[in-house]
């Protein structure tokens, strides 16, 4: 009887350690917040170019993550890119004239949407669209423009 009690206890410890490892993986290693952010409200933002923005990219306001990009698709009429942003329901007082910008975290980092709040009294609701947006900065374009202007300047100097 003692023997089976011992085995039961050890198996209990084993299962407890296994579950603790699972808990550690889900709490410490992963972002549990991604599950809760599912129940938020969805607003849309229209861009000419979204660069490297992906589904699940963070949406930040003043650097704080307040939601995630939940869907990206092309508007079939205007050929704009439309990003659907799922905002945490805690942040339900985003002004109507908020602007959305696509920024890059660091030089090689991932791209995210930054919301800059406006001053309107009405707040964005489910399904609303952000009117003021600015597109992703594509590094190659900037380098191209820079080289082009540089070359132009040089040729003028020669003359």
């Amino acid at each position, binding site marked *: 009887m003692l023997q089976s009690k011992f085995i039961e206890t050890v*198996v209990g410890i084993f299962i407890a350690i296994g579950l603790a490892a699972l808990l550690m993986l889900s709490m410490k290693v992963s972002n549990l917040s991604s599950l809760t952010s599912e129940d938020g409200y969805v607003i849309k933002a229209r861009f000419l170019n979204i660069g490297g923005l992906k589904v699940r990219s963070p949406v930040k306001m003043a650097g704080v993550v307040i939601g995630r990009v939940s869907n990206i698709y092309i508007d079939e009429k205007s050929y704009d890119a439309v990003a659907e942003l799922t905002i945490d329901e805690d942040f339900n007082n985003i002004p109507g004239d908020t602007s959305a910008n696509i920024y890059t975290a660091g030089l090689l980092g991932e791209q995210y949407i930054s919301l800059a709040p406006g001053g309107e009294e009405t707040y964005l609701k489910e399904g609303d669209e952000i009117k003021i947006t600015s597109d992703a900065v594509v590094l190659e374009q900037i380098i191209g423009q820079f080289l082009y202007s540089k070359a132009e300047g040089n040729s003028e100097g020669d003359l």
Partner: protein
Amino acid sequence: MVKLGQLSRIPLEVLQTLGRYGLDFFERLGRGHVFMIYVLMGFKDVLQRWQLVVIQIFSVGVLSFVIIVISGLFVGMVLGLQGYNTLVDFGAEESLGVLVALSLVRELGPVVAALLFAGRAGSALTAEIGLMKTTEQLSAMEMMAVDPLHRIVAPRFLAGTISMPLLAAMFSAVGVLGGYFVGVGLLGVDDGAFWSQMQDTVDLRDDIFNGIIKSFVFGIAVTWIAVFEGYDTVPTSEGISRATTRTVVNSSLAVLGLDFILTALMFNK
């Protein structure tokens, strides 16, 4: 004409051999599935004798604990070292946590834990059941109207299926700690960046749940192969040794093959 007949007989024999291997293979495959149906039917007996499963979790799971934890620790530490050496060239050593955690949770945790499990527990299961068959203990049980599939095989199968995801989770968790120890402790990666980038990137559902599903599938595959090979042993000492070898080889191959299929299904964006 006689010559032509002799010539055409050689390819025929080759084809015949091929056909025999094919038939043998499918016969074994079919027997394995019928066997599994009987084992699953034995689960209702197992639920009344939960004690049997607990004892088996001890011998299958708890006794694999040490090898799993030590291997996980070293795999994590090696990942930390190798990842750091590669990432530091790009000035991205802060992403070390992401690299270690994602490779462990998605791939290495389930796969390496399953391979170790096949070597440590699967071979033991096969040898145990094979010896029971060779010494006619299984036949003796049948004589006493006790179904060995319900009494011997079903608890072992259930224990293996329960233990595998737990072991894989321990492997991944200890591996992350090992990567943390090497990355932050020895190589001086920033503590906060290590965890925060990891938490930012690793997703509970996409990465961790899929990893658990993987290890669950591997647990079923490895334990199934182990108990079937044991039950299907040729009852000689050579037969046991062959069955044990086959368990380790087949279940390792099954784990790697299934891993490819599961990865293709889970992570194709």
